[in-house]
Structure formats: C-alpha cells, structure tokens
C-alpha cells in the first residue's frame, strides 16, 4: 500500500536555501545593472548594454519567483503539519534528520526510529515493573500515559476505562507490598539497633565499673574478689541467675501440664463419643436396657 509523506524538516531547510539564493540573485541583478550603467552608449556597446539589461530583467524575475516559491513552500509545510496533527491526534512524526542535504530517502527511517524508541521504552519499563519499589514508578507512569490516551481521543472506550482501573489496582497492590516490607524492616532494625546499643552501653558501664573496683581494691590492698562491693555484685548476679532458672523451669512445667491436659481432653471426648454410639444401638445400663434409636424412630413416626 502506498503512503504519502513529506519530509518537512528537510523541506524547511530547502526553503531557507531558496530564500538565500533569491537574495543572491537580487545582488547579481544589482551588479549587472551597475555594469550596464558603466558601459558608455556607443554603436558597438549598444547591443551589449541591451543584452545586459535583458539578463538583469530575467534574473530579477527568477529571484522574485524563487522568493515566492520559497514562501509558498513554507505555507504548504505548515498546512501539512497541521493536517497531520489533526488527523493522527497522537504524535506528529517530526522527521528528524541529521542529513542537512535533505535526502528524502531517510523520511521513512524517521518513523521506524520513533517506533523502535517506543518499543525500547516499553521494554525498559516492563523490566522496571518487576523490581519492588520501582514497580510503583512504572505503575504511575502507565497511569499518566493511559489518561493522556483517553483524553486525547473522542470518547473513552470500555477497554481504556478498564485499563485505567487495572493501573490503579496494580499501583495499590505494589504500594501495599512496599509499605508492608518497609514496616517489617523498620520494626526489625529498630529492635536490633536499640538492643545492640543497650548491650554496648551495658558492656561499657560494666568495664568502667570493673576498672573502678580494681582501683578501689588496689588502694585497700585486697584483690578485686575480696572487696565488699564486688562480693555484693557477684551475689546479685547469682540470685538473678537462679531466678531465671526457676522461671524457665516453671515455664517448662506449665508447658508439660498443658500438653497432659490436652491429651486427657481428647481421650475423654473419644470415650464419650464411643459410649453414645453404643447407647444408640445396644441395650446398656446407661439407657436402661432400651437402645436410644427406638424412642427416636417412634418420635419421627409420630411427627410424620
């Protein structure tokens, strides 16, 4: 299928060149007129002068025609661009060209470059969409693009509206996942940081206290272990250790008791269930010799 395209950027360059050429021609006209004016009127020079005047006239006409052609071409370019914009309503293919000589063969490759750019763009954003955090940026970008598409068109289609809703849904899901991850990390690092800072402070204090105790012991002439303060500290530490051991033992005992109680409850339930089944179909002491099924059937018959 044939397609029509004007390589507008190249043509604009051509217009400028034509305008310059028209000006150059105007200068030639002036030069020719000057030369013609300097030739003295003589039988031998009359024809030369006449010819020069004729040439000057022709060049002036050509210069005017060239300037007119350049301005008309400019008008055509503007009309074409406006028409294309109105027809496509999406993107104006601006034919970028590095070739200033205006090779019209590159007009088609401008289109191909644009669509390759779009494909590369989409591929990059698809990859970014898989990365936690950056997927939110990809979702926001998609929302912008879809809104632009809808509002640039006449009436939003059902597909376009569904697309927008899906974009918001994806953004919400990715935001929730990211917020959840951020919360977990924040909680974890806060707890660890607070504990490790406290532990380091405690270590520093203990080291300082030990230093002070050693100093005090050396002054009294005794070893560190013999000073009253150190003995008290050792006693307190032992007491704390014993309390912790007792608490641990109590925890274990409670656990064991819980397990035993659960086991007994299960046994009891199973026993009761078995007894109910037996009572339903067989005469026992509990049902006074009459299986429970008989009165149940009689009742059902009465109700009908």
């Amino acid at each position, binding site marked *: 299928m044939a397609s029509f395209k004007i390589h507008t950027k190249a043509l604009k360059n051509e217009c400028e060149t034509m305008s310059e050429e028209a000006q150059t021609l105007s200068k030639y006209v002036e030069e020719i007129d000057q030369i013609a004016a300097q030739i003295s009127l003589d039988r031998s020079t009359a024809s030369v002068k006449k010819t020069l005047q004729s040439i000057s006239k022709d060049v002036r006409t050509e210069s005017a025609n060239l300037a007119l052609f350049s301005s008309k071409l400019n008008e055509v370019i503007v009309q074409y661009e406006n028409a294309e914009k109105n027809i496509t309503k999406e*993107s*104006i293919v*601006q034919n*970028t060209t590095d070739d200033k000589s205006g090779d019209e063969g590159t007009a088609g490759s401008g289109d191909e470059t*644009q669509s390759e*750019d779009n494909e590369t*763009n989409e591929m*990059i954003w698809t*990859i*970014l*969409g*898989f*990365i*936690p*955090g*950056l*997927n*939110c*940026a990809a979702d*926001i*970008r998609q929302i*912008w693009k879809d*809104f*632009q598409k809808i*509002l*640039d068109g006449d009436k939003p289609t059902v597909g376009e509206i569904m697309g927008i809703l899906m974009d918001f849904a994806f953004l919400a899901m*990715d*935001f929730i*996942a*990211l*917020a*959840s*991850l*951020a*919360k*977990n*990390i*924040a*909680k*974890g*690092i*806060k*707890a*660890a*940081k*607070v*504990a*490790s800072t406290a*532990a*380091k402070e405690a*270590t520093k204090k203990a080291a300082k206290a030990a230093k002070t105790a050693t100093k005090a012991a050396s002054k009294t002439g005794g070893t560190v272990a013999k000073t009253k303060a150190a003995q008290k500290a050792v006693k307190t530490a032992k007491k704390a250790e014993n309390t912790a051991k007792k608490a641990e033992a109590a925890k274990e005992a409670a656990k064991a008791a819980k397990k035993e109680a659960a086991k007994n409850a299960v046994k009891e339930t199973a026993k009761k269930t078995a007894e109910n089944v037996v009572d339903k179909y067989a005469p026992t002491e509990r049902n006074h010799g009459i299986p429970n099924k008989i009165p149940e059937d009689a009742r059902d018959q009465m109700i009908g």
Partner: protein
Amino acid sequence: MNDEKLEDIKVVSTVSFVIMLAGTIMGVGAEADNIRTGKVSLWWLVLIFGILTVISFAVVVISSRILKKRQGQSYFSTMMYIEAILEMFFPSLLGSRSAKLKKINVSDKNKKSKLWKDMCVGCDIDNIISFILWFVLWSVCVWMVIKYIFFVDGDDNIFNIASFSVVSIALTIVLICVASGIKKNPMPIFEYMDISKVKFKELAKHYDMADKVTHKIWMDYKYVFIQSNGKAYCIPVEDYIDMTITFSRFRFVMVLTSTYDCVVKSSFSPAGFQKLKTMLETFHNK
C-alpha cells in the same frame, strides 16, 4: 492509638510521600509536554498527586511529633532509621571500635577455619553478577535521560526525562548498596562477638557442624549463619524474635529479627525462607 500503630503509620506515610513525590515530578513533566504540543491538559492529576504528597508529608511530621512527645528519650527518629539502614549496608563505617580491633586480631589458626574462608574474606560472586546486571539497567536509564535531553525531538520528551530521572536516582542508590556487598564483610559477626563475648573459634566450630538450609543460609542447633549482600551474620537461635516474608512481584524478601540484629535477604523462591522459619520456631520453642 498505641505507639506501634503510630510507628507503622509513620513508615507507611514516608513510603507514600516518596511515591507521590515521584508521581508529581512525572506529572509536571507530562504537563510541560502537553502545554508544548497543545494536547489536553492533565493539571488536575498533577494537583491530586501534589496534594497526596503534601498530606503524606504532613502525616509523617505529625506522627513523628506525637511519638517524640510520648516516648521522650527513647524516641527513634527518622535519621536514626536512616543510620541503622546505612549500618546494614555499610557495617564497617559505623561498627564499634572493639569489633574492628577484633577483626584485625583474628589468629592465623582461625583464619584457616571454614567460617573465615567462606564468609569473611574474598568476593561474593552473586553480588558481582547482580552488580553487573544492575549496572546495565542503570546505564540504560541514564542513557535514556541523556538521549531525550540532547538527541531526540518528540512529544513526550520532558515526561520521559522526568520518569527516567526518577528511576535513575533510585537505581543509583541500589547500585551503591549492591557494590557495597561485592567484598565479603564479616563486621556483623564481630559486632555480635563484641556484645556476647563469644570467641571466633566457637562460632567456627558451630559453622562446621551447621547444615545448609537454603542458598547462603546455614544452621545448627545454636546458631544461624546468613550471608546477605556480602555481609556475614551470626544469629543465635535463642535470640530469634520474628521472621516475615513479604512478596512483591516475583521477589520474596525475608526480614529476620533477633535481639541484636536484623537481616534482610531476598530470593525468587520462598521455600528456603519458610524452611528456616519452621526450623527456627521449632528450635526456639524447644
């Protein structure tokens, strides 16, 4: 509203602020293109994102003020969170002096141990590959910014420049963090040794006995050894507090909290993380 909920609100609104700010920046770019090309204006969408940005920031500030008033000295500020995260990725910068000295003073005998050779020295191959892939993605995004500024005429130039710039900044931070993990860093282990006074050879002994749980996670009855982003962690089983596994588009992120440490590790499959969680909870409850 209790302090924990308020902390959660603060964190969520911080995340929301960053995302809405990115959306607003992209929107301003899109609107600049629309004005230039005469397309339909989306100023109302820019306004919505802008308002959400301001609201998120306000919630962050208000919740921070309330928490500071309630908690006083024990208040954990945003700056402290940032410091803690930096410490996670660059433990050498903020590690304690004695931990640094301990690392330097490892004996030759200990340097022959498997723990030292596997987790403390050398380069992390996974991080090298990860760095190369992230670098390629970062380069492509930076190239797209440069291309749209200097080499391409089009309708969506400013929008594309804004979008790719936002992503490039995020990827620069990711690249720096991944680069920090190329050389193996045992600082977290030495920090733990500094706090608990346990010796390196004791940990090495447990590492030799440990079984592999999943990629770069080993565990015995007493310790869990984890290598994440080049950092080597040693978590005592008795110090285990909590483990969460969050899913986000084909990537699972584990956050393991213990008394003195917090480990963040990601993977394409949650199976290994689930196994570790089950084992930790079983051993911990015993």
